[in-house]
């Protein structure tokens, strides 16, 4: 997804609702995140734009709550329960996803395959 400063950003988003799994004292989501404004974006294998400091899904646990909810590896997380995730540090992102008493998190994600599918259908 290319971003031109000053121009409106359009994105095809997917809503993902994750019901966390309780494991003892912890609520597990079953995926890993990479990225953040304090991180080095060139290390991100999933972003199209290597200056993109957004939060990306780097791993999804098989059979875990995230996979069940439809989250995929490489998804970029735009929002969590209404909170913006495009301009946060790695640790802020972690905190927003792992709030103690929140059993359900609603994510807005973008996915390159979605973008491409929409573009192609628009062209035909």
């Amino acid at each position: 997804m290319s971003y031109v400063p000053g121009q409106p950003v359009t994105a095809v988003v997917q809503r993902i609702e994750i019901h966390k799994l309780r494991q003892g004292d912890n609520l597990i989501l079953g995926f890993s995140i990479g990225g953040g404004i304090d991180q080095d974006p060139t290390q991100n294998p999933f972003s199209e734009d290597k200056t993109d400091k957004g939060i990306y899904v780097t791993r999804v646990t098989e059979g875990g709550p995230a996979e069940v909810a439809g989250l995929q590896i490489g998804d970029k997380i735009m929002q969590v329960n209404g909170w913006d995730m495009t301009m946060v540090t790695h640790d802020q992102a972690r905190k927003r996803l792992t709030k103690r008493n929140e059993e359900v998190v609603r994510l807005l994600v973008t996915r390159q395959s979605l973008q491409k599918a929409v573009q192609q259908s628009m062209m035909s």
Partner: protein
Amino acid sequence: MYRDAEEIEREKILLCETSSSEHKLSVAPEIDIMEYCRKEWRGNTPVAKRMRKGYEAVAQKFASIRRVRGDNYCALRATLFQALSQATQLPSWLQSEDFTMLPENLLSKYDWIKQWQLKQKLGRKMGEIHDEIKEYLILLRKKWKNISEIKGPIEKQEACDKLFKNEEEEYSLYEALKFLMLNTAIELYNDDKNGRRVPVFSWLLFARDTSSNPRQLMHNHLNHIGHSGGLEQVEMFLLAYALQYTIQVYRLYKYSTDEFITLYPNDPEEDWPVVTLITEDDRHYNIPVRMCQETML
């Protein structure tokens, strides 16, 4: 006007030598952290194994490492380099109006500060102590301001690299930091004497035989930093407090203990920025770069 072949050759060599010493980079270019680890620690001794495991742990969060020049300023060098590399604004203590009046103010209260060891300047006459230190503080503020105003991360890093190739300026900044450490130590000492709460490290700082008060701290410790000694651990706390930064250190020889990652101070204020260093032995510090953290949720 007309030089013979020999003279031209001599001139070329001279040019090479001066440019290589002018451009001596105090902080080496980055290399892959695991590659660095493999080269440094080959054997199978328990120490080597522990170091490799330590580096692997660092590599989960940082992709590269930059070697820092190993003189007795290296703790100051590594910390300042990291702070400037990510600086986006002047810290509040640098913004204060009477920041540059600090040397004069302190000297008027504490006569013993006249014995502060200034760094020797080759060829230049040494001025009054408070003038010299004032110059260093002004330089610190100027450099911090310039670098923090650079928006692009690549340009910012380039400006940092350039500063750390200029020996004269670089070493003046370390002297400024040392003076700020003295100022902080004096504040803490006085707070404690006046019954105000002080952080725990402050007691440890002044509990040492060699520094039971700020005057001794200056004589026996601060005056030696950069010359015959580096920073002791308790002085890392002092540096962090002076800068109002949290210094996070991966201490590799402490791998698999709860001191592997040590924070100075260990109960950091929320809004103090964090800089990260690596040390194998608490003596020499290097810099990890290229954060690429991945967190399992």
